[in-house]
């Protein structure tokens, strides 16, 4: 941390009568073991304002929300809610004080109806179902939050579920509403609606804390922006008085014009108008070029009978990057699992190069030349408790074995080589994977998958999720170099701007079907956004 940290927040003044402040934090510090998640954070949230918390992954945004909501207790510093000392021991206490939070991961129960979910923890004894439905309807009207109280939550779309979460908060008449990355799961069209709801909630006098890493949203909604970096407040300013370049710089310590199109997309700013409009030549896949991947009418029905993929056909040539756009939960995970060999398709065939790998084991798929960067690197990308070296060579232990015993020395040496080549920063090849930052874990996974030789096809599913900008840049560089080396790449991402910046063409997946192909060009953004929301389908139906 440089010495020239900007601390724009003035020391909160607790004594001021009639202050507009709802919540003030002064010097809040939170450590997890040796890791400082928040250091000396001071900020004030005022009545009726939308206060955006901006920062890269790992900057401490979620921790800050969790401290406000009483999930974590700070080691130092104080909070005041409406002037009273506020030290919640758990979320229940925060709720009782009028602080409500919508988490990144929803906390509604899928098998219950909307109204049942909303009544949980709110009513005791006889269920006043009708009166409750009335209150829900009133809130729906007041804030334009369309929810059908009698539908099962499982049947709702992600956007609808999120609305239920928000209603669940509003029904308590909160004085402060905290939303942790609420836009990350939404298609572009629903983001607008959500921001409008935030504005209405703020207009009713409630304070709104909105966490995001997308600057474009901030420009639309924020009254005040506080930027966190490495657990510290590095900038805080009213939106009117600041510009995007300042926040970008505070957030990633880089100048906005130095960011390429892809990186700009990853922090949510549109850099097309900037001086550095990228003129990357888009590859025209040559007709008759060799196939890297052919997914031929693949369907996948899970053991519960839910159809996730419906006759999907994707053809990827060598040397092109095909983006797969779509709101999360439309079959991307299942497609990834099928291509990785973790699930067997119910119908259809899969080819890597000219080798059929339908339903083949992961080992066979790897041998066919397919690298897989899974969407959840903690679930299937790496084994956190094992060393970096073991993670890199788990599939290739034979190379270092003699008489069944692993020779750790040569393995560590080879791992150190690979780590150096891919810039994986760790205490050493024997350091546990869990000790690496998210970006370095992802670089290690990429190092392993890109060292498949020859690499025919690379599946990169949400490869930049949760990474800071330096790591995002490295991941893009690796993907582009895989393309340059002649591999076909399928890039699955829920960030449309990322796909436009990196891919050669974009397919859109909706409810398990490919419903359109668009050029990866900014002019196609609106069309793709509509396709992602399934609107083209509704029109044609």
């Amino acid at each position, binding site marked *: 941390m440089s010495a020239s940290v900007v601390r724009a927040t003035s020391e909160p003044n607790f004594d001021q009568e009639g202050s507009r402040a709802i919540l003030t934090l002064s010097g809040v510090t939170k450590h*997890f*073991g*040796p*890791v400082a*998640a928040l250091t000396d954070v001071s900020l004030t949230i005022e009545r009726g304002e939308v206060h955006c918390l901006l920062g890269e992954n790992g900057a401490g945004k979620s*921790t800050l929300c969790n401290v406000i909501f009483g999930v974590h207790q700070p080691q130092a510093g104080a909070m005041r809610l409406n002037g009273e000392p506020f030290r919640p021991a758990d979320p229940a206490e925060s709720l009782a004080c009028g602080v409500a939070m919508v988490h990144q991961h929803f906390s509604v129960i899928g098998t219950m109806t909307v109204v049942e979910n909303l009544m949980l923890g709110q009513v005791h004894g006889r269920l006043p179902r009708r009166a409750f439905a009335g209150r829900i309807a009133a809130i729906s009207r007041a804030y334009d939050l369309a929810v059908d109280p009698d539908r099962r939550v499982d049947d709702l779309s992600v956007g609808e579920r999120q609305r239920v979460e928000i209603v669940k908060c509003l029904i308590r008449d909160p004085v402060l509403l905290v939303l942790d990355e609420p836009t990350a799961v939404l298609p572009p069209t629903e983001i607008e609606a959500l921001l409008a709801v935030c504005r209405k909630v703020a207009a009713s006098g409630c304070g709104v804390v909105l966490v995001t890493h997308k600057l474009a949203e901030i420009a639309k909604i924020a009254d005040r922006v506080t930027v966190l970096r490495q657990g510290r407040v590095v900038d805080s300013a009213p939106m009117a008085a600041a510009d995007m370049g300042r926040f970008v710089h505070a957030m990633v310590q880089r100048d906005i014009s130095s960011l390429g199109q892809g990186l700009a997309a990853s922090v949510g700013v549109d850099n097309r108008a900037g001086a550095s409009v990228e003129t990357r030549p888009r590859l025209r896949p040559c007709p008759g070029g060799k196939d890297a991947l052919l997914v031929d009418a693949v369907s996948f029905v899970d053991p519960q009978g839910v159809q996730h993929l419906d006759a999907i056909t994707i053809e990827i040539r060598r040397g092109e990057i095909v983006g797969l756009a779509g709101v999360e939960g439309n079959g991307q995970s299942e497609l990834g699992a099928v291509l*990785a*060999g*973790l699930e067997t398709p119910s119908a259809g065939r899969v080819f890597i190069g000219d080798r059929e790998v339908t339903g083949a*084991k*992961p*080992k066979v798929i*790897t041998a066919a030349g397919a690298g*897989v960067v*899974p969407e959840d690197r903690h*679930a*299937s*990308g*790496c*084994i*956190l*408790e*094992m060393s970096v070296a*073991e993670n890199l060579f*788990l*599939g290739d*232990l*034979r190379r*270092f*074995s003699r008489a*069944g*015993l*692993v020779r750790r020395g040569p393995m*560590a*040496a080879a791992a*150190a080589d690979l780590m150096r080549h891919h810039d994986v920063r760790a*205490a*050493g*090849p*024997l*350091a*546990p994977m869990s*000790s690496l930052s998210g970006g370095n874990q992802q670089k290690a996974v990429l190092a392993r998958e890109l060292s498949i030789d020859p690499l025919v096809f690379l599946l990169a599913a949400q490869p930049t999720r949760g990474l800071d900008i330096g790591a995002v840049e490295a991941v893009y560089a690796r993907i582009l170099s895989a393309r340059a080396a002649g591999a076909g790449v399928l890039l699955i991402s829920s960030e449309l701007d990322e796909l436009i910046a990196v891919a050669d063409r974009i397919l859109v997946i909706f409810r398990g079907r490919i419903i359109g192909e668009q050029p990866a060009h900014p002019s196609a953004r609106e069309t793709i956004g509509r396709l992602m929301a399934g609107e083209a389908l509704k029109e044609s139906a």
Partner: protein
Amino acid sequence: MPSALANVGRLRRPLALRPWTVLLPVIVTCAALAVGLGLIAATGASIPRTVSAFWIGAFGSSYAIGASLNRAVPFALVGLGFILAAKANLTNVGGEGQIAVGGILATATALHGADDLPRGLAVAAPLLAGTLAGALWGGIAGLLKVRRGTNEVISTLLLSFIAVNLVYWSVGSVNLLRKPQTSASTQPESLEIPDLTKLPMLSSDPSSQLHIGLVIAAIAAIVVAVVLTKSAFGVRLRAIGLNPLAARRAGVSQNLQLLALALAGGLGGMAGAIMIQGDQYVLKIGFSSNYGFDGVVVGLLARGSAVGVIAGALFFGFLRSGGMSMEMMARVPSAVVWICQGLIVIAIAGSSAWLDMRRISAGRRP
């Protein structure tokens, strides 16, 4: 390279060698013993006589020491099987059943044909048969796990009940292993196995019953330790145990879980064979008298270390010998003996769990 490796040491568990990580279990175990002695006093038995009975039973003579060591062998083998399967995140609680099928097959092989073999093979054949039977028993649970996702705690436990009843059946029917009924008082048990198939003794002292099972267990411990810590197989087992999905993605076959349970079962079966060929010589109902379940406890307490298994097995072997002597010589009720053993287990497990919790909460990350 050296500079990169130099940092690794810092990542090791910081609390491993603090004095109180050793002292605490000792203190708590002493407290458990004190409570146990209090209970014994409450039953009216004399404390000095109880203590001396324990000493005589466990360590008092070369016979006592030999018997204690012999008892430690099945504990060690079952415990080793437990930590092997536990490496793949599998909980094999089927030691009792694996001992039972191992004992049945060892007895059957010894009584039917093995004594026609030359000396070495006559001993090895029943031992191998028992081991294979145990491996099959564990393998069934493994197959269910890999193919159907059946929880191995349930399947190994239920398979144990089946196996224990197979012992009842095979010693209850003259068509199977029951010795010929010459009078109404003939016990439901097998004939004694031929001398040629009995395990050789380790000591020339005729009063000591110590057999080569101890050597077999020691070799097994070394093999298991090497496999778990040094081999590619061990790395793959660990991977599949820690994160089955990522391990599969990296090309590790799920059938490794089947293999792990079969190997664990094989060690249990070997324990059963050794119990028959080593000192019991006769298959009878209840011959495995909870060795399989206590072996699981040994494996649990060892926390993945083969050395820990050996230490635990010795502890349990001497405890059981001393306990039996307390029952016989000092008239301590057997229930109280079992309660004392339970208290000691809770003391050890509880103190190490408490130390773990402290370590985790000290190093917790978001």
